[in-house]
C-alpha cells in the first residue's frame, strides 16, 4: 500500500498502525482464567439480607430460655444500677446555715431527712406552748446539755431530732427548754464548739446506741447446740445402769444434772449390788464420772 502510492503517510495510515498493538498469546490464557473466575462468581448470587431471617428465628427458638434469662439479668442490673444512682446522688446534702464542722457530717438520705425535719418541727411546735408556761427547771445538768445543743441547731441539720419524740410529752417540753438555754450559754461563752456539741450529743443521749444501732438477736453457736460425744456416752451408760430413772428425754439433754439430782445414795447402792459393784469406792467413781 505504501509502496504503491509513494505518497506521504496519512493519519489513517498511522491509526492503522494501532491495529497491530495486540497482546501476546500468554495474555489470553490469563484472560480466560480470570474471566472464568469472574463468571463463576457472577453465577453464585449473593444472598439477600432477608434470607437470614428464618435462621435468626430458629436460633431464637432454640435458645429462647437462655435469652430470656440473659434479658432478665440485664434488666435487673439496669434497674439496680438506676436505683443505686438515685440513692447515691442524694447521699450528701450540705446544710445551709450550719457551720462547716457540722455540715461535713454525712447525713441520711434526703427523704429520711425530710421526714425527720417534719417530725421534729411538729414536736417543737407542740412543745413550745408548754415550755412557755412551765417554770424554768433546774435540770440543765451535764447529761442534758448535748440534747440542748441538738435542739438549738438548725432543724434541717439534725437527723437525731426524732429521738426526742420518743420521750414523754412533759419531758420533751422540759428538755427543749433546757436545750435552748444550754445552747445559748454555749454560744455565748464559745467554750464548746458545734462539733464537740454534736459529738457529745451522740454520746450523751440516753440509749442512743441501742436506738441508732438495732440490737442483734443473740445467735447461738451451732456447735454449742450439739450434744458432746462424751455426754451421749455417759447417758447411754447411765441408761443401762439405771433404767428406771433414765428416760429418752433425759438421755437426750443434759443428763448429768438431772441424774445427779435424782440419784440418791440408797438407790445407787441398790443398783450397784444388782450389777455386782459392791464396793463403795466403785460407786463413788461412778458418781464422780457422772458429775464430770
Amino acid at each position, binding site marked *: 500500500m505504501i509502496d504503491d502510492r509513494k505518497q506521504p503517510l496519512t493519519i489513517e495510515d498511522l491509526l*492503522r498502525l*494501532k491495529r497491530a498493538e495486540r497482546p501476546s498469546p500468554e495474555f489470553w490464557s490469563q484472560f480466560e482464567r*480470570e474471566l472464568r473466575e469472574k463468571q463463576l462468581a457472577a453465577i453464585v448470587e449473593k444472598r439477600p439480607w432477608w434470607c437470614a431471617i428464618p435462621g435468626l428465628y430458629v436460633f431464637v427458638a432454640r435458645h429462647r430460655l437462655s435469652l430470656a434469662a440473659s434479658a432478665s439479668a440485664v434488666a435487673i442490673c439496669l434497674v439496680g444500677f438506676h436505683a443505686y444512682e438515685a440513692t447515691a446522688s442524694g447521699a450528701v446534702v450540705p446544710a445551709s446555715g450550719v457551720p462547716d464542722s457540722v455540715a461535713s457530717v454525712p447525713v441520711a438520705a434526703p427523704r429520711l431527712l425530710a421526714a425527720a425535719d417534719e417530725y421534729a418541727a411538729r414536736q417543737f411546735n407542740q412543745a413550745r406552748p408548754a415550755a412557755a408556761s412551765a417554770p424554768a427547771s433546774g435540770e440543765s445538768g451535764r447529761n442534758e446539755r448535748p440534747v440542748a445543743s441538738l435542739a438549738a441547731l438548725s432543724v434541717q441539720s439534725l437527723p437525731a431530732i426524732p429521738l426526742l419524740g420518743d420521750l414523754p410529752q412533759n419531758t420533751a417540753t422540759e428538755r427543749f427548754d433546757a436545750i435552748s438555754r444550754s445552747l445559748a450559754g454555749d454560744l455565748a461563752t464559745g467554750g464548746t464548739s458545734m462539733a464537740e456539741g454534736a459529738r457529745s450529743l451522740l454520746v450523751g443521749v440516753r440509749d442512743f446506741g441501742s436506738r441508732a444501732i438495732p440490737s442483734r438477736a443473740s445467735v447461738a453457736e451451732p456447735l454449742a447446740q450439739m450434744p458432746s460425744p462424751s455426754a451421749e456416752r455417759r447417758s447411754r451408760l447411765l441408761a443401762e445402769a439405771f433404767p428406771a430413772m433414765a428416760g429418752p428425754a433425759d438421755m437426750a439433754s443434759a443428763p448429768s444434772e438431772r441424774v445427779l439430782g435424782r440419784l440418791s445414795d440408797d438407790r445407787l447402792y441398790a443398783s450397784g449390788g444388782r450389777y455386782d459393784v459392791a464396793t463403795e469406792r466403785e460407786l463413788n467413781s461412778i458418781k464422780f464420772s457422772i458429775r464430770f
Partner: protein
Amino acid sequence: MDLHLGGRCVVYPVVMDVVKSPGKALVASPERRREADGDWEVVRRVQDGDFAAFDGLILKYRSRVHAIVYNLTSNREDASDLAQDTFIKAFQSIHRFQGQSSFFTWLYRIAVNSTLSHLRKNRMRSFFSLERISEDEPVAREIVAALTDKAGAEKGAYVHELQDKLNEAMQKLSIKHRTVVTLFEIDGLSHEEIAEITGCSVGTVRSRLHYAKRLLQAELQPFLNQ
C-alpha cells in the same frame, strides 16, 4: 450510553436492557448478517440454559472487544479488566437480549459504555501501558518500514516513539471523538454501526470523525511530513 435527545447527545452509564437502540435496524453486509444469525442461535442456547455455549462467543469476540477497549484507554491492564467485565455483563444480561440488533453490536455497546464509564470515573488518572506493535501484521510492517526509511532512524526506538505519540494524541481527544475514531479507523466499523453503538446519528458520527482526524493530524504532523 449516548442518547440523541432533541439534537443533543446525552451520555448515560451502562443500562443495556433499558435503553433501546434508536433508529432503524443495522444495515449489515451479507457476511455480517450470516454472522449475526449464527450468534443468535448461540444466544438462544445460552438463554435455554446451555451456559457453556457462551464460551464460543467469548472466543469469537474477545480480541475485538479487547482491541476497542484498549484503543480507548491506552492501558493494557484496564483493557483486560474492562473486556472481562464486558463479557460478564453480557452473560448476566443475555436473557434480556431480544435479538433486535446483532449480538456483535449489543456486545460492542456494552464494551463502549463500560469503557466510557471507566474513563469518566478515572478522568484524572491517565497513564499508558501499551502493547507491543506486532510485526506479523503486513500493513504495520510496511508502515514502519516506510517511516524508518524516511527518518533514517533506528527502527525500534522510532517505532516506540511513534507509538507513544500516537496514543498521546488519541488521549488528547474527547471521549466521544476518541470512540468514533477507534470504531471507524481501528476496528473498521461502518458509520451506521457506529451510530447504532453510540446512539448517535450517522451525521454526528461523520462530523465527529472529521473533527477528530483534524486534531490528530495536527498532533502527529511531524511524522506525517517525513
